[in-house]
């Protein structure tokens, strides 16, 4: 089973101002230009290598999962949210079955009669259905299948609430 990564090596309070800006300011509209990290460096008056090093540090420490694309659900491949009702004593063993599939990218225990909630993503509907059937077969419990029908979310990233005053100061210099 995938480790439950509850520990971090650095706390949020130890982040530098530059790191906070990298986390907060580039969640969307990341530069689609030849030298994107250089372009970001110029905004802060630092070297390209400072941006590259800091992004690597943030990634290693788990603050960033990646720099890249968030795809609209179901725009490529097939995916669904799924839920199961699993008795307390079997939670670990069923979680292990669910997590064993590469197609499962999220799996959470939640406080509800339906307590096991996971997301399955596959290249096509047939593969998706096979994974769901297989999980039902191996666990012995039914899967409630809840595909997305409509997306109402405007994804502009997540405001981390950092103080961004320093950016305007630097820009004013």
């Amino acid at each position, binding site marked *: 089973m995938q480790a*439950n*990564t509850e520990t971090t090596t650095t706390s*949020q309070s130890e982040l530098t101002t530059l790191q906070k800006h*990298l*986390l907060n300011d*580039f*969640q*969307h*509209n990341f530069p*689609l230009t*030849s*030298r*994107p*990290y*250089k372009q970001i460096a110029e905004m802060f008056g630092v070297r*390209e290598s400072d941006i*590259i090093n800091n*992004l*690597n540090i943030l*990634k290693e*420490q*788990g603050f960033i*999962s990646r*720099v*890249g*694309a968030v*795809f*609209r*659900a*179901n*725009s*490529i*491949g097939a*995916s669904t949210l799924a839920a199961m009702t699993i008795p307390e004593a079997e939670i670990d063993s069923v979680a292990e079955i*669910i*997590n064993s599939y590469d197609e499962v*990218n999220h*799996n959470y225990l*939640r406080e*509800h009669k339906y307590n096991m*909630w*996971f997301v399955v993503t*596959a*290249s096509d*509907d047939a593969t998706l*259905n096979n994974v769901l059937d297989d999980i039902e077969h191996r666990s012995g419990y*039914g899967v409630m*299948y*809840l595909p997305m*029908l*409509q997306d*109402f*979310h*405007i*994804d*502009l*990233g*997540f*405001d*981390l609430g950092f103080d961004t005053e320093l950016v305007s100061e630097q820009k004013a210099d």
Partner: protein
Amino acid sequence: MDMKVNREPLLPERIQLDEQDQKLITLIQTGLPITPAPYADLGRELGMDEGEVISRLKKLNENEVIKRFGVVVRHHELGYRSNAMTVWNIPDDVVSELGTCMGQFDFVTLCYRRPRRLPDWPYNLFTMIHGQDKEDVLANIEILRERCSLTEIEHQVLFSTRRFKQRGAIYRQVK
């Protein structure tokens, strides 16, 4: 136990992508290289020049196959340690209007309509609400209820108690 679930897809139409787009998507799922010229590096693996990689990514952005392109943070590690999947049973004729209202708040990171599974599951709108702790999440849900005319709408708040797995989706390339 009921193993017979309805698996009719009922999914929105998918945008047709050519083979080069699919290869590019497969390659960038694990993230953009953190190197001086990341698009040129991607292009080298795909047999495309840098300009083509950039223009294809711009197009995928424009037609919203890519919802957002940039730094993907992990909420939990950044102090947003609590999240609740909050589900709502909204009359079909107002679900678009109320869903659109909820989808604008930045503490809402997902806002999807999904099918009801009656009689067990009457909820048709799913929101993921983040906060620094449980109280913060509940306060955010109250903000939504007031601002989006949801005070009369039945809902349930499902806090997560354990995380077994969390990573970006991996789509295999369609052959």
